[in-house]
């Protein structure tokens, strides 16, 4: 029994020694020559996906490949590469997967133009539904007459539930 307890205690301590900080959010202390580059770094590290992680961008991931990529991104920015060049380079190595903003291509037309198309279809649906004849003043007047009839019926102590009230409405209208 004592051996077992000792074993567990030793295991737990050895686990303590191999702490990995995979979940800790990374803080990179790169020095930038100006604010513009710093902002570009922050923006690009949010646009690029960490290739190995479960859906995290370069800024938030603490994995080994992400920290290597952040260093690489920093170097490329210091070298004066443009945003497009950097993105092309990353895609060249890791594929389109590494971009969180998919590039517009044959494959992604539906993705980028779909929403606009949906709005367009939606507007057509609205127009089609509105094509029904609008309520005229005449129809309004008829309703008032039917209302009075209904009030009378209610005052006569007829038990009315919403459903039968509607049925009543229908029967009054059809007369």
């Amino acid at each position: 029994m004592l051996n077992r307890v000792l074993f567990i205690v030793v295991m737990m301590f050895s686990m303590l020694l191999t702490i990995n900080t995979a979940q800790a959010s990374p803080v990179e202390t790169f020095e930038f020559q100006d604010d513009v580059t710093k902002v570009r770094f922050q923006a690009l590290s949010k646009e690029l996906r960490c290739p190995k992680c479960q859906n995290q961008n370069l800024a938030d991931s603490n994995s080994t490949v992400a920290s290597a990529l952040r260093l690489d991104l920093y170097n490329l920015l210091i070298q004066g590469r443009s945003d497009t060049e950097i993105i092309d380079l990353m895609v060249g190595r890791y594929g389109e997967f590494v971009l969180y903003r998919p590039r517009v291509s044959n494959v992604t037309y539906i993705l980028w133009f779909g929403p606009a198309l949906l709005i367009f279809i939606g507007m057509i649906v609205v127009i089609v539904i509105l094509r029904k004849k609008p309520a005229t003043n005449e129809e309004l007047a008829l309703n008032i007459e039917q209302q009075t009839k209904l009030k009378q019926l209610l005052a006569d102590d007829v038990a009315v539930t919403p459903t039968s009230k509607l049925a009543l409405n229908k029967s009054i209208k059809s007369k």
Partner: protein
Amino acid sequence: MNKIIRFLPLILVIALGVVLYRGLSLNPQDMPSALVGKAMPDFSLSTLSDANKTVTKADLSGDIVLLNVWATWCPTCKYEHPYLLELASDPKLKAQVTLYGVNYKDERIPAQQWLAHYKDPYQFSIFDDEGLLGVKLGVFGAPETFVIDHHGIIRKRFAGAIDVRVWRKEFEPLINQLILEKQQGK
């Protein structure tokens, strides 16, 4: 016309269901390499054993190359290691193919000690402590192995440990093909 519209939601949902079903048999973690068919990127780094010796792409050319990415923090690499030793000592293979290592995001002394303890199958290991060569190669993690032909073009990237089954299925056919190509002077 109205009747057809009523069936539209059902039809759309059935189509979606088919896509989802198909999705179940896919593996979202599976990542093909973007570098297959491209030249091995250039680099200038020290070797693991000697901090003063610098190697570049030129030091890898001429042969058919197996480039294995490994690290001391990678448990799967330990699992793969004995088989790499086997490959490296196979005389027929040694004649045609050379095995190099990339020590990825590691520390020099522990890595040297690791190789001393578990034996070194590599011609030499490139010391990539910042991971920048790994980034150029599109490496995700360790272990990963690249097959590079004698022209310096990357022909395959395999992510995961190599054992007998994996070698026979994933590597052997390609290696044989590359040997043939080299002999035919292509």
